């Protein structure tokens, strides 16, 4: 009996060991690229070419960061990532606000002011979430040209807002569906109108999903590359396009430290958002898989 107990405890201990061992090894695997990016960006070029890529720098230097931010060359312009970082901010802020505002309104209407065909409309919108954007690139380029905003930041804001609305509408619609209809009916009887109900009942209750929507849109738009590379060039490019251009410079000795610093700079905003509000990020991520 007692040996049985001992062996069972051994078995349990072994189980815990396997569990923690697996978790730690895999955690190391997922952290490794971030570690490599960070240490490489802090090394001098000589140390990179002379040493191991995974070691901590013998001499920490921020030269690569300064260069990536301010003086690295993209094409013939040597202003670093700074102007493109600014481009991305100028693009992402209005696009997030516009798409979230429109999504909130749409979600409110599609859940609380249902009309005949509302479900079909929602289904058609939902398909837009899964659109392979290659299929709209050509017409969109034409439209942007005709609107006179081809190759500009406002053009990108427009594109990201239009395709972002599909996601934000889904977020808000699925969230508002859970708010009881009785609340709306009571407010209607009390004389509140369409907008009044939206602003004083729905919006205050929607704070979590507003955060989810903003974070999701921010991450998507900041990380977008396809629209950026298709619709802009040169000085109007967002940061992802600029990063890719810096990395693909083929002249001279490859400056891996500058590449990694540039990658870190491009990744920083979304990483910060993830660290600060990871919970909401995960909710946005899994929203595509929950039932509508």
């Amino acid at each position, binding site marked *: 009996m007692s040996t049985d107990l001992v062996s069972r405890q051994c078995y349990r201990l072994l189980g815990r060991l396997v*569990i923690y061992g*697996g*978790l730690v090894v*895999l*955690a190391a*695997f*997922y952290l*490794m*690229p971030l570690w*490599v*990016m960070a240490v490489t960006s802090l090394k001098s070029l000589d140390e990179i*070419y002379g040493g*191991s*890529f995974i070691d901590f720098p013998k001499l920490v230097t921020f030269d690569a960061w300064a260069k990536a931010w301010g003086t690295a060359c993209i094409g013939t312009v040597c202003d670093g990532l700074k102007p493109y970082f600014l481009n991305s901010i100028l693009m992402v802020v209005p696009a997030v606000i516009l798409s979230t505002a*429109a999504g909130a309104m*749409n979600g409110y*209407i599609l859940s609380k*002011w249902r*009309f005949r065909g509302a*479900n079909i409309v929602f*289904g*058609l919108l939902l*398909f837009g979430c899964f659109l*392979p954007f*290659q*299929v*709209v*690139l*050509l*017409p*969109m380029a034409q439209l942007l040209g005709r609107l006179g905003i081809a190759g500009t930041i406002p053009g990108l804001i427009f594109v990201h*807002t*239009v395709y972002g*609305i*599909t996601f934000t509408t889904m977020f808000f619609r699925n969230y508002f569906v859970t708010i009881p209809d009785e609340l709306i009916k009571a407010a209607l009887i009390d*004389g509140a109108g*369409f907008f009044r109900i939206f602003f004083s009942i729905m919006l205050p209750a929607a704070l979590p999903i507003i955060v989810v929507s903003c974070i999701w849109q921010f991450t998507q738009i*900041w*990380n977008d*590359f*396809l629209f950026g590379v*298709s619709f802009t060039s040169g000085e109007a490019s967002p940061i*992802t396009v600029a*990063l890719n251009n810096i*990395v693909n410079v083929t002249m001279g000795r490859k400056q891996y430290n500058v*590449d*990694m610093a*540039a*990658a870190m700079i491009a*990744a920083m905003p979304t*990483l910060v958002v*993830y660290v600060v509000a990871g919970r909401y*990020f*995960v909710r946005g*991520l*899994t929203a*595509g*898989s929950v*039932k*509508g």
Partner: protein
Amino acid sequence: MSRSIPVKDRIGHFLPKLVLSPSLVFVFVGVYIFIAWTIWISLSSSRMLPKYDFVGLAQYVRLWSTPRWHTAVENLFIFTSLFLIVTILLGLFLAILLDQKVRAEGLLRAIYLYPMALSFIVTGTAWKWILNPSLGIQEVVNNLGWESFAFDWITSPTFAIYCVVIAAVWQSTGFAMAIFLAGLRGIDSSIIKAAQIEGAGLPRIYASIIVPMLRPAFLSVVVLLSYISIKSFDLVLALTNGGPGSSTEMPSTFMFTSTFRRDQMGVGAASAVMMLMTVAAIIVPYLYSELKEGGHEH
């Protein structure tokens, strides 16, 4: 504020639709009209600029007789199957481990998931550096004493596509894990207890009871990962730029180069339509079933 009720009723009737319509118009034009427009271009003889004539399926014939497109389709097939299998197995494994009441679960989860917050361009840049044979992993292992160790897949036309798989798996596992974990948390723990009393070991319980119960999570993961893999463009561009040669070409990069770099707009549009049809074949039934079930719930 003392409007008569009938007027207000009438306002109430059309106001929501009025408010909804502008953004709906934009989205419907941006999605459905543009799809039709692209299909139209794919049926025309457009090369550098769009030309609105009609040449039937000529561009599709050209597309399917382009060796580069065959490479792209083959790669998509290899990439999607490997990416799905590895990501799902690894994601499920992590979710099950995390579900064993471990310490620091929040921290570990955050570590597995943070790559999802990165741009594929960042991921591609990092992995390109890690996988490069002259200074990356290969060099480190060589210096440790194992001098014959070779890991130069990224420069090999045969193996470079597996590098794309590695980076994509690294980026997306956390996503699969999050969905599986949500599924696991929804399972009644008394089922596990009952099976344990019957004498079943934990691995068996998972294999024969728990995992089958995760079917809805599997469906979601498969659909969403397939979608990610079909549209994956930035990662390929940043990691291998379609090379060496055209060995890691994918439909998405093929579409881009045909349209914007090679002045073959008609072929590019045809390839985009092929991509759309592939995505639609997966997504439409999925959305239909999700919406139908959802409808029953409310």
